[in-house]
């Protein structure tokens, strides 16, 4: 078998330059065929999603905005080990660790915690490697449809703990992260 006849997709067609017959050269038959194709589409189901009323369903592996989780007692899980920052291919995560004081026991689960935890949303590619790297199950990518809000200032895209940490009432109610936002 020569290489010309191979068609991996099965859709290969030989170019034909044969002369059209009289009926074909009138084009009327071809136009009629075309009209029949378009009229069939008139009655087909429409694919439009009427946006504000309907929304497109998300893929099961959809990754939305990050959230720093709390445990059942409402304490922050993050121990500022820096593995997420290490795994981040875009270098988006920065953090600063601090030691927990005795009176802060109800706030942080481990003895070390992140006093500053920032994600640069202009760099983040939502790959989810931070989520995979975290040994304390502290950082999650939620199913939130709001990913990054638009802004005119670069500083507004650096999300600190005020935007990332799970709200306290959410931790108390033990809401699953999938329903976040």
């Amino acid at each position: 078998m020569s290489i010309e006849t191979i068609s991996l997709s099965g859709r290969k067609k030989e170019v034909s330059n044969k002369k059209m017959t009289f009926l074909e050269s009138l084009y009327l038959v071809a136009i009629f065929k075309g009209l029949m194709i378009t009229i069939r589409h008139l009655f087909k189901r429409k694919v439009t999603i009427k946006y504000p009323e309907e929304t497109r369903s998300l893929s099961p592996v959809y990754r939305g905005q990050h959230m720093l989780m709390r445990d059942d007692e409402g304490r922050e899980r993050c121990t500022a080990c820096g593995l997420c920052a290490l795994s981040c291919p875009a270098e988006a995560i920065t953090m600063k660790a601090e030691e927990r004081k005795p009176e802060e026991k109800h706030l942080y689960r481990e003895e070390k915690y992140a006093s500053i935890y920032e994600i640069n949303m202009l760099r983040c590619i939502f790959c989810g490697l931070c989520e995979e790297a975290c040994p304390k199950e502290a950082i999650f990518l939620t199913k939130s449809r709001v990913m990054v809000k638009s802004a005119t200032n670069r500083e507004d895209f650096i999300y600190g703990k005020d935007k990332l940490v799970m709200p306290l009432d959410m931790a108390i109610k033990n809401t699953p992260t999938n329903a976040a936002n």
Partner: protein
Amino acid sequence: MNEAIIIEKSVIIIAVFALTMLMAMYSTLAERKIAAWLQDRVGPNRAGKGGILQPLADGLKLFAKEEFVPNTENKFLFFVGPAISMSMALMTSAVIPWGDKLHLFGRDIILQATDIDVAILYVFGVLSVSIYGIMIGGWASNNKFSLMSAMRAASQMISYEVAMGLSIIALIMMTGTLSLREIAAGQEGMNWNVFYQPVGFLIFLVCSFAETNRTPFDLAECEAELIGGYHTEYSSMKMGFYLFAEYASMFISSTILAVLYFGAYNYPGMSWMEENVGVNIANIIGMFALFAKLCFFIFFYMWVRWTVPRFRYDQLMRLGWKILIPLSIANIIITGIVILLTE
């Protein structure tokens, strides 16, 4: 008696004018809807229920847009262009027989604004003037591309006017009259002209696509080669007038197609209805029959627009001069021979 005629005619004229405007308005919506449906979309559905107020919203938008006039020496002509297109598109409806006659207040009311003997010639005359709107608009725009587009429109109009006129001659030979009213009356029963003149109908159909500047012959407006076409420099309602004129002329040419070839207001069983139910009701149904026919043709225009791609300019000229004109001359000869043989 004289006053009665004046009142009757003014009512008909106003009704026809309003109908043409309304149809042109809703053709814009219909076009967008049909285009959407043919492409598996939903189309405009926000303004009113199912988008029914969309034409009003469009009109409002066009009125509110900035009025831009290019730096041209022909400001007057720049304004006159859309006005000519618009008025010519609306003028044709005067001679169309919308129905046979109504018997009201002891008088026979003919459902036609004016019944002139040379109605077809009048239609052709007005149609050929309407190209002046595009020509003047394109020329006064002071824009090379607009001018080229207007030239294209004009040459297209000339070449297709010839074939259109010749195709209608065979019909006139058959019916023996130039009056649209008599042509309509002659198609009583199912004696629709399309059965006797299929080739003539086909030529006329293709030519009316070209005359109204609709796809596949919309070379006057071609975003790929000439920016926007003859209306590149137009904005706000002047642009709206050009679009409106296109839809109005589409409505009129659909009506003429229905009147000339598809039996106008005649429908099967019309004479039976007249004898048994009454003249008025039979003729009102006739008006609706004509309306249904022309609506089908408007739909057909849109259907073709979203199916067939635009012609290339030389293909367009070839089709007009080398195919349609000889074909219509052959049609005349064959019709003449058949008329001679059957006499």
